[in-house]
């Protein structure tokens, strides 16, 4: 197991350090050292945290080194893919691939500067084309505790006495069903990370890349609205700030595709959704990642992210005006309240209003590591209780499109049968459902799975009793599993 619980507290609230934490921190440190000098306080704190995690992890390992392998875009530990860590680890995997290396070995005792040397090497230009040369460079710089491993091969790490090969893991990695979605996620994260880093540096954001990611998401949403939402629901993935932006983007695209067929406009909306929080890159991390109620000063600082966002985007050549307006105005209410203050009450574009709705809805219904999700119904209630905040006509359309029971959700009907929502209707709480389980709990055969339009007068006696689960389950599973790369243009493009 790659989890260790340390620093016990008598009442049971134990600190939990996982290998995924370590990989996340490694990637974060890599990103930080690309932004800041190694002596900068932020870089120092990252490295200290990384060292701490390393120490705690090796304590949990009885013997040997800590080995992280990489292959096919995945990060592996004990020859197993790390699902959450792999999603955001392109920044780590790419430099290793460029050096023809299959992973990193962290010895139990690290030197004082080992991690700094490694991070600088990984973050810098690739001068060594092989892992041997990279190792030589590490040694030349005084790094003795970390090494680049040769290209990943099955059983390679068994010889090192670290892990043994598990039969199932290797066989799945190269398969397109797993590889392509993972690469797609990595690309989205990588693009957003790149844009954010450049934004924080005051550099140029690759708008073309953002647009192509938006195009990718647009294709996915049009093909299957639930897939993208599920794609970013993994908890570890949500640890990244980018998860929210991707979900808002997907929500906006999903909603907007009901309002327009203009593909170019959809891509513009998608780009705006991806970039709407880019100003947060200029917010101090201690404020941005603060858990709990913000102090007035912290809140004021946080509220500046809209100013920063529009400033960053205005500085970009050929920036789409929609992205600028969305970034600036997505926290401003329809009645002029909100922030940033606008004494003139400049009217907002419909796209800004749309993104605002999606932003709030996502924030309310998202699964957070530190907070439970809110049901769509509760979220709608809250949104309706703020009459001046949203465009009422647009909110109506949004509620109508999403429904209180989103497509793919599992619900229990008033006759105790279980069903899955297929389609929303004009009646907010009466979607079209397909029965899946009988009232006894027995799963129904395919021929018995009736489709029921609860909004039809004949079905008035049947209600949705409760929402069991949000999102899509088995339907996407089969679709993604069966999608070969040549049969799905957008997947091929992503690959």
């Amino acid at each position, binding site marked *: 197991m790659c989890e260790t619980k340390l620093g*016990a507290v*008598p009442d049971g609230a134990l600190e939990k350090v996982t290998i995924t934490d370590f990989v996340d921190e490694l990637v974060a440190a890599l990103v930080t050292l690309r932004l800041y000098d190694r002596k900068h306080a932020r870089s120092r704190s990252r490295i200290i945290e990384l060292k701490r995690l390393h120490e705690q992890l090796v304590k949990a390992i009885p013997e040997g080194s800590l080995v992280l392998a990489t292959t096919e875009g995945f990060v592996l530990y004990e020859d*197993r893919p790390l699902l959450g860590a792999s999603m955001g680890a392109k920044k780590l995997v790419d430099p290793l691939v460029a050096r023809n290396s299959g992973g990193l070995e962290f010895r139990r005792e690290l030197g004082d500067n080992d991690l700094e040397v490694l991070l600088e090497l990984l973050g810098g230009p690739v001068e060594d084309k092989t892992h041997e040369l990279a190792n030589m460079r590490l040694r030349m710089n005084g790094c003795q505790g970390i090494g680049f491993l040769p290209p990943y091969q099955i059983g390679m790490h068994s010889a090192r006495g670290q892990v043994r090969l598990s039969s199932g893991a290797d066989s*799945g990695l190269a398969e397109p069903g797993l590889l392509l979605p993972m690469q797609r996620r990595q690309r989205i994260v990588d693009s957003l990370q790149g844009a954010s880093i450049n934004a924080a540096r005051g550099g140029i954001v690759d708008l073309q890349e953002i647009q192509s990611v938006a195009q990718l998401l647009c294709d996915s949403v049009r093909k299957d609205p639930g897939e993208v939402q599920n794609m970013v629901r993994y908890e*570890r993935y949500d640890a990244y700030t980018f998860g929210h932006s991707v979900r808002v983007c997907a929500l906006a695209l999903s909603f907007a595709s009901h309002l327009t067929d203009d593909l170019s*406009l959809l891509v513009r909306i998608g780009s705006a959704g991806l970039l709407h929080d880019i100003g947060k890159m200029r917010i101090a991390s201690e404020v941005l990642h603060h858990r709990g109620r913000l102090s007035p000063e912290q809140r004021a600082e946080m509220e500046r992210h809209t*100013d920063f966002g529009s400033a960053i985007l205005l500085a970009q050549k050929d920036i789409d005006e929609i992205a600028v307006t969305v970034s600036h105005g997505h926290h401003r209410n329809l009645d002029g309240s909100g922030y940033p203050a606008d004494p003139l009450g400049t009217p907002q574009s419909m*796209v800004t209003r749309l993104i605002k709705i999606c932003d709030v809805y996502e924030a309310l219904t998202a699964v957070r590591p530190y907070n439970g999700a809110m049901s769509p119904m509760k979220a709608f209630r809250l949104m309706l209780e703020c009459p001046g905040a949203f465009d009422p006509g647009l909110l109506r359309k949004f509620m109508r499109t999403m429904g*209180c029971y989103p497509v793919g959700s599992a619900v229990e009907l008033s006759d105790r049968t279980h069903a899955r929502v297929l389609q929303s209707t004009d009646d907010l709480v009466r979607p079209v459902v397909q029965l899946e389980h009988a009232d006894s709990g027995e799963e129904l055969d395919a021929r018995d799975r009736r489709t029921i339009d609860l909004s039809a007068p004949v079905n008035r006696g049947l209600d949705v009793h409760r929402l069991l689960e949000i999102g899509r389950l088995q339907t996407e599973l089969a679709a993604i599993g069966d999608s070969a790369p040549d049969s799905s243009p957008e997947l091929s493009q992503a690959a």
Partner: protein
Amino acid sequence: MQAGWAELAAVHRCIWRRSEAVQTPKVAPILPIQAARKGFRRSVSIHPAAEGPVSQGSVADVELVRCLAVLAKASFAYQHHSRRVVDALATFQAGLREWMQPSGQPFVLEIRPDGAHAPSGRIPPSPVTDWLREMLQRSLVGALHFDAALTDGALLQFLDRLRTTGFGKQRKEAAFASNWPDTYEGLRLRELKFAGGFHALDVGSDPTGLTLLETLAGESEQRRSALVRLGLSAESMHRILTIERRIGGPATRETATEWLSLPDELLAALPADVLDDSKAREQFAERMLDELEKALDAADGAGPAAEATAADPLQLFRRVARTLFVSQARRAQVPVDGAAPAALPHRPEDGANALEGAAELVALFEALPSQEIALMPAAAALQTELAGICLFHLSADGDAFATGPAAAKLREVLDQGPTAGANILEQYVLHEFDPGSSNLPDAAVESVFRKLGQFQLLPALRSHGGLSSERVIRHFPNGFVLFLKALAPNAAADAAALKSVLGGLDETALAAGSRQLLQSGELLQPVMLRKLLAIGERQSIELVRHLLRGAPAGVYEEIAHWLKQLDLDCAEAVPLALYKPARLPAAYVQLMCDLVSTGRTDPLLDPIAGDLLRNFIATTPNEERTLELKQKAILALWAFPGPASLELLKTQLRGRGLLGSLRVPRPIRDAAVQVMTSWKEQRHV
């Protein structure tokens, strides 16, 4: 091989049909669907676990186990000599001694699938005892026997080892023997064994449990270890074995390419971080089993091709496992009635019944207006919104990062046409004219205009911002300086606009306005004054005259400079050419302005102008470089006759010293003679 699987599938179909009819099956494992499973999980095809009545542990047992757990936690966190550990150890030892006092029997703590068991019965679940149970389970400890010989040292030694084995990475090859190589005085450990649960006793008389026992009797240690490692509930383990029986399991080892051992495959397929999380592990395993059963069902009900697929269940399972984690990386939380984790903050309203207020929600929804949505923003509206954002950044002080790009973008917007961004810009201009007309902060407006000037964007106000002549006249002096700033120096239209403004101001407005302008002082800056005079030319003189009434010295200098440039054709204006502007008296400049404005010479002007001329003639030596100016001054003196002037000219003709008259330059002498002759003829003298 295919034939074998097809036969099995046919048998299964047959069994399934019969099971639906709730008949007693001849094949033991396949039995009716279990009802009332939690959540939305697919039911399994086995008997519900028929657990016999389990007695609850006595209060003393529960307390003793709790003390042990507290001691374990304390020893994990603190040094052995710390107060917490010492106290916890003493409490546990005292409790143990008290417990063993009557009978002398050892105290046994057993780990079973349904929880920890003490001699008197099951220990009710609680966070602390569950934690201890999890620790022991992870360390492959099935039971602990405490007897009277237990020493403090042995117990602490055991807990140290428990920490090593229970925390962190649990090695796949971990075994009880390797985990617990040592012996502890007074404490005996029993290995955790899987036998339809973790202990044979918990199976009771359940026929399914007995079948499990039988099934596992001949299985390998690796397989048992995998089941233990998965740490699934007894229900899930039953399900695994049922599915294995369904697909044939060991019976088809000879026919299938590779036998599917579900525990091993599950263990191999789960990602490391999922495997690491006990909740996620159970959830993902259940989902995999769901999918596998679904795939098997599909194969059963489909044609020969599907059956052929099902004939290799190993590949079928691996295909399911391969695709599961990406499409269902994490199942969404059940938001309505799924309780948030106890240790985390949660929104209390999430626990509310979803139906509560549904009707009210629908009513609120219906009250929302239904309208057509045009998503594509109109170009003009978008430009206006963008201009507003640019002006927002220009109105904020201190963020130089945004100023340049905002100004550049505003220029782009304004270049696109006269209407783009006009409305927003006009709001700022209107505020300048009438500060009470908008909510804009004065500082913001001032900052915007300052930065617009800095980036040469002020001229756009004339074409886009409503900075018209009429408004300037109406609101004078408000906006006049801004208007002046927005004028292009060499544009004829702008000059005409300024002249029309200056011409449109009556005396009253000028008098009142100039006082305000004097107070603000902005117009009195040399640059502004110069621009006013340069563009407004003589039209600006009225305003200038008013300004001069309270203006500082520098203003006079500028105006004198301007008067000089007017090249006025009168004798009173000659001093302007002779003196530097700073050396001219304010009264002279003032009177000269009056002269330019009215065309009439003030009686006070002549003496001043004459004095200036006489002073210049008297103090200027007859040198080559000043000869022309002096001659000009002498000729201009003609307009100011009088004894002083006559005496001065005579003095100039006499020169200095003996034969000085011979050294007077000819131009000076001629000019003086000419002026004196003229005076004589006109009898001025």
